[in-house]
């Protein structure tokens, strides 16, 4: 026989073999699929889920941590999820998976105010208690919202800090992130409102720059600010990446004492710049506490203790008692407390915490 025919016959034999093996394997697998006993799985505790904005964010990690501690000390199971991209689609996928797992409650830190509404409504329709935390979602999609601190207070506190640092008058600028999540713009609006008050008449807001929460962009924007406004006295950066970037720039350029920095920052990131004086003091709140508070909101909603209405009261473990209040966007919220001030006296203690 010709070579090719020989080869071909060998291939045919192998083919037959292969076909047989594959059919057998496929049938076995099919059979398995149909016969799985669901008693393979033990009875499980009620599950409470939290979904953050994205991975690799230490602030988010701390929130998740606090949430986990709170849930577990109440005797339930916590599920912590974060998408790899800070997008709404990724969160939708996660929420679908949580719905399938029949979790008792979903705590969402929203990547988008509106885009999650359909899927969150689907969750609610199946009996899951949905509430937001840190970055809120549309009130139609949530029972309530856990807010770190009163947005108006944040605005007021930051402007007062700028006032004190500048000596009462001068040019100030704001270095923001992107206004993707609801908080940045709300805070900036309150800051502007505060600046309109008569006692701040000598303080002038010259620019709002956007660093997109990108390290290199925040650096360029800060340098741009310093370039364009040589008389700048204070930079307010209500974003953890922005304030750290600005701190580095001011340090590298030796502008300590000439330009001051304040805002909202992570103690770990800002330790260096608080200690060297570039940033006399700054604010934040404890994300661990935020998550912890969230865990108690979740359990209170599931147990029926609260329904998310204004005036509902509940107890949040080591944090004490809380009452639900009206939120500026028409829904309701729970406030953690006033912003916490970090300065030279306490930064060493806090820098290792988060």
């Amino acid at each position, binding site marked *: 026989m*010709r*070579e*090719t*025919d020989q*080869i*071909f016959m060998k*291939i045919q034999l192998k*083919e037959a073999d*292969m*076909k047989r093996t*594959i059919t057998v*394997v*496929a049938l076995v*697998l*099919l059979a*398995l*699929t149909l016969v*799985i006993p*669901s008693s*393979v*799985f033990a009875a499980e505790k009620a599950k409470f889920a939290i979904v953050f904005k*994205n*991975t690799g964010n230490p602030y988010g990690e701390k929130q998740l941590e606090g949430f986990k501690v709170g849930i577990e000390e109440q005797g339930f199971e916590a*599920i*912590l*999820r*974060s*998408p*790899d*991209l800070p*997008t*709404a*689609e*990724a969160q*939708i*996928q*996660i929420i*679908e*998976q949580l719905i*399938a*797992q*029949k979790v008792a409650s979903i705590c969402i830190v929203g990547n*988008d*105010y*509106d*885009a*999650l*509404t*359909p*899927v969150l409504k*689907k969750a609610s329709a199946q009996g899951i208690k949905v509430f937001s935390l840190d970055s809120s979602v549309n009130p139609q999609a949530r029972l309530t919202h856990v807010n770190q601190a009163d947005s108006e207070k944040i605005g007021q506190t930051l402007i007062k800090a700028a006032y004190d640092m500048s000596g009462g008058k001068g040019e100030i600028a704001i270095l923001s992130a*992107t*206004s*993707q999540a609801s908080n940045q713009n709300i805070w900036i609006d309150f800051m502007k409102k505060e600046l309109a008050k008569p006692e701040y008449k000598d303080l002038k807001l010259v620019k709002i720059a956007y660093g997109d929460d990108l390290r290199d962009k925040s650096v360029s924007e800060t340098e741009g600010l310093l370039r364009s406004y040589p008389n700048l006295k204070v930079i307010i950066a209500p974003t953890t990446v922005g304030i750290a970037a600005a701190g580095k720039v001011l340090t590298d350029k030796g502008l300590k004492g000439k330009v001051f920095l304040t805002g909202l920052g992570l103690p770990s990131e800002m330790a260096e710049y608080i200690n060297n004086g570039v940033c006399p003091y700054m604010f934040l709140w404890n994300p661990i506490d935020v998550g912890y508070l969230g865990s108690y909101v979740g359990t209170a909603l599931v147990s029926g203790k609260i329904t998310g209405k204004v005036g509902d009261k509940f107890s949040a473990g080591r944090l004490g008692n809380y009452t639900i209040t009206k939120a500026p966007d028409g829904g309701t919220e729970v406030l953690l407390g006033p912003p916490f001030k970090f300065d030279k006296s306490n930064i060493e203690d806090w820098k290792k915490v988060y």
Partner: protein
Amino acid sequence: MEKTSIDINKPRGLHQYQWEIFLIVLFLAVNVVNSFLSPYYLTLDTFVSTPMNFLDKAFLVLPMTMIIILGNIDVSVGSIVALSSVLMAVSYNAGLPMPLAMVLALVVGTTCGFINGFLQIKFKELSATIITLSTMTVFRGIAYVILEDRSAGKFPSWFSFLAWGYIGKIPFILIVFALTAIVFAVLLHRTRFGRMVYAVGSNRTACEYSGIRTDRIILGVSMLAGLMAGFTALFLTSRMGSTRPNVALNYELDAIAMTVLGGISTNGGKGRITGPLISIFLIGFLNYGLGLRNVSAQVLLIILGFLLILSVLVQNFTDRPASISPKKLSAPTHRSDAGDGSDIHENSAQGG
């Protein structure tokens, strides 16, 4: 009439579907593993409604199959989705009636596809890779210029039917996708256009010298890709009820992964649409199953990366004997010229 060596060595019958069978086995395996991993997996609802999660990007896989068979690649599809979606939302909010806005999304998508195709045929020195890399940035850039940081939405309530609605027990998106897939399958495997796609992918120069209008093929496929991106935009936006410039990030990566895993070789000129169709569900259910176990995003990233590379690796190893050096075939003593021409007009696509 003597058979040519091509006819003799061509895999026959079920052997042709080697790769697809492999995928189906893999798919079953994934399902088994998932069922063991999570008690929530094995419900009818899972199999019916989970696809709603990933079918929006599945529309991109259909034209991507053609593109890769052509020997090209397109990394701008995600950005086209974003731009179409943003323009639809903005125009609706500016007063355009919703049905027209939806048509606009499709028009925008097709136009972007046209631009891609146009650049490719006018600047043949440039690879599709770099052209679509640039247009990827431009298209999404335009979306950012229009919508900046904001989101746009407030669509009429019926709009959410696209992504969330059912007809009877079957999700609407599944029906649309099935119909579209059939259209593409027919287009690719039963029309002259499809045949020419394979031809151009196999050997573009030969086609040009044979009088085949390669430019039109490339343009057509690019516009199809844009049109499908418009479809994706419709369903994705409907799922979220609003849109931003940063939607559909990495969709191109997913589409390419599904296509390549489906047995379409990046060398071009071969592949069947059945493979990618299976791998859409394979990857979709794999993601879902892993998500049910709350596997972290980092691990998922790594898995997807490996999957992509692995599938191309396996592709390259299981390539047709015909693509190995001619030495392995016997002496061509019985090559019949033209003959009944069946070997040319026959679908020269072989499975992986």
